[in-house]
């Protein structure tokens, strides 16, 4: 055994990463900028995006991207911090969209009021409807949350309520396109940092405990179903918010808002971006939604390319972009002798 010829790759936290973990972060510009740089790149990048892209079409793509990002954020939060795999993105969007539409057309509320109201009330409705499957563990939540959007869409179609197949038209749009974009980008950034904060509070710890071992949480005297319901409420508020914005952007609300795209694309974005990082899924949406727009020229082949990209990611980088990026940013590698 020639031990001196053997080497292995060592992974070590960067010194600056270790220093910025503590109070020392406040002591020097270098440490401060190490912490602030990634956040600033994200915030300024998002704010600059509408100014950088060419034309109205791509500005609209960015708004849609942000709505998908909200859904992906809510999916990642539920899946990786509470352990509930939700396929209900479409349900959240649909409920939020219809709520905003009804509030706007029937009661004449302006968009800046309908969006938050629709989000809060819609979140309540979604949580109530999903409540029966919360005490169960396993695939039940995923199945039920997948069935609801199909169920509601067919119900509206068959009973011809809420505008039937035509949907609800005549909804007020945002005052101008800049307000529309910055409103949604602002909400997205706010929720992104908000959820990041939430998962590190005490409640966030309990939620992660629910994912890891719900029996231990129960044994610690906490009501698992209650905490799950809280998490579902938070996630569905995010989804409904996206739906409400969507209704005002298209000035129309219809059963296509229950389309399964809203459930599936956020999951794909989470896979690409890196689950459990919260920011990863947002980045995943920023990559996937524009790609799917670009691929529109190929017609139905679009789905083929799309699927190939996803499969390639799962095979070669199943950890996700963000997990990989964080590691490269915070750690360095070197060969060491054994």
């Amino acid at each position, binding site marked *: 055994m020639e031990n001196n010829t053997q080497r*292995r790759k060592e992974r*070590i936290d960067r010194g600056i990463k270790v220093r910025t973990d503590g109070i020392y972060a406040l002591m020097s510009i270098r440490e401060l900028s190490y912490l602030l740089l990634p956040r600033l790149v994200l915030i300024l990048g998002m704010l600059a995006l509408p100014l950088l892209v060419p034309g109205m079409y791509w500005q609209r793509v960015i708004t849609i991207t942000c709505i998908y990002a909200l859904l992906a954020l809510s999916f990642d939060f539920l899946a990786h911090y509470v352990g509930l795999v939700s396929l209900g993105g479409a349900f959240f969007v649909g409920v939020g969209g219809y709520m905003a539409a009804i509030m706007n057309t029937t009661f004449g509320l302006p968009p800046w009021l309908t969006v938050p109201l629709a989000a809060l009330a819609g979140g309540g409705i979604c949580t109530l409807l999903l409540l029966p499957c919360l005490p169960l563990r396993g695939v039940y939540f995923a199945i039920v949350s997948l069935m609801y959007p199909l169920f509601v869409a067919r119900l509206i179609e068959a009973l011809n309520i809420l505008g039937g197949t035509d949907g609800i038209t005549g909804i007020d749009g945002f005052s101008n396109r800049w307000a529309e974009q910055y409103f949604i980008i602002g909400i997205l950034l706010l929720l992104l940092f908000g959820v990041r904060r939430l998962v590190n509070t005490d409640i966030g710890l309990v939620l992660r405990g629910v994912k890891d071992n719900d029996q231990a949480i129960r044994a610690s005297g906490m009501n698992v179903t209650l905490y799950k319901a809280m998490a579902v409420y938070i996630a569905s508020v995010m989804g409904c918010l996206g739906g409400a914005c969507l209704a005002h952007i298209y000035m129309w609300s219809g059963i296509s808002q229950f389309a399964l795209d809203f459930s599936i694309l956020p999951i794909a974005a989470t896979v690409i971006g890196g689950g459990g990082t919260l920011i990863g899924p947002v980045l995943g949406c920023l990559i996937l939604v524009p790609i799917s727009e670009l691929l529109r020229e190929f017609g139905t082949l679009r789905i083929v390319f799309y699927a190939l990209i996803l499969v390639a990611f799962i095979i070669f980088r199943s*950890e996700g972009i963000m997990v990989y990026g964080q590691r490269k940013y915070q750690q360095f590698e070197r060969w060491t002798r054994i």
Partner: protein
Amino acid sequence: MLEATGLMVFYENMLALNNISIRCGVNQIIGVFGANSAGKSTLMYTLSGIMQDIQKKEAMAGGERITLMGEVRYMGEDISGLKPSQRARKGIVLCPERRRIFNESSVLENLKIGGYLASSSEARNTLEYVFKIFPPLARLKKRIGGFLSGGEQQMLAIGRALMAQPKILLLDEPLMGLSPLMQAELILATKGICEEMKLSVIITEQYARPVLPIVDYAYILENGSAVMEGSKQELMDNPDVRSAYFGIEESYE
């Protein structure tokens, strides 16, 4: 029969096994003793090849980087690169820590799954043999695995490992959480299995006292390094071992 030289395992930068070399001869019982975090389970995973599986999964998920080094030879053949399933086919069968029985299958099904690779006559004979050495299992044939008691589950886990027709049986902490009575029973059964089925056994345990009487040779691990090795008698006579692993305090004159 099984010979490992210079085994080193790193979990990221933490050294879990430090240059361990162990040998197991034909029809021998080898003991590996050590406290928690000494590296016993890591050693078992490395010998059975499961470590390579863990390594691959961690790499895919972007988790810890596991570095494996050293050589495992089985009947003179280098098997360091083989997958766990290939090693099991060659006769190196692990009975994992915490039993890991199939909770939702019945006792009989559990055993049948274990005997999947064996020919049907071998499986039938071994099944009979397992029921002979562990009579409670024959009585509980139809019971769902998850509803067995700890001792019965351990019997089932060993039985399942035997069904795979091992030539070397790796028992990882088989006595964990069992009453002293059950421990004695299991150790006796292990001894019997070794003699009747003509196989070798490597057994790890934290507390050496119940196991040491049946082993031929033993290694003592501490923080990933082998601090001592020797035959049963050598270890029994060593005052450090007596106090640390038997709970016998020497009286100082």
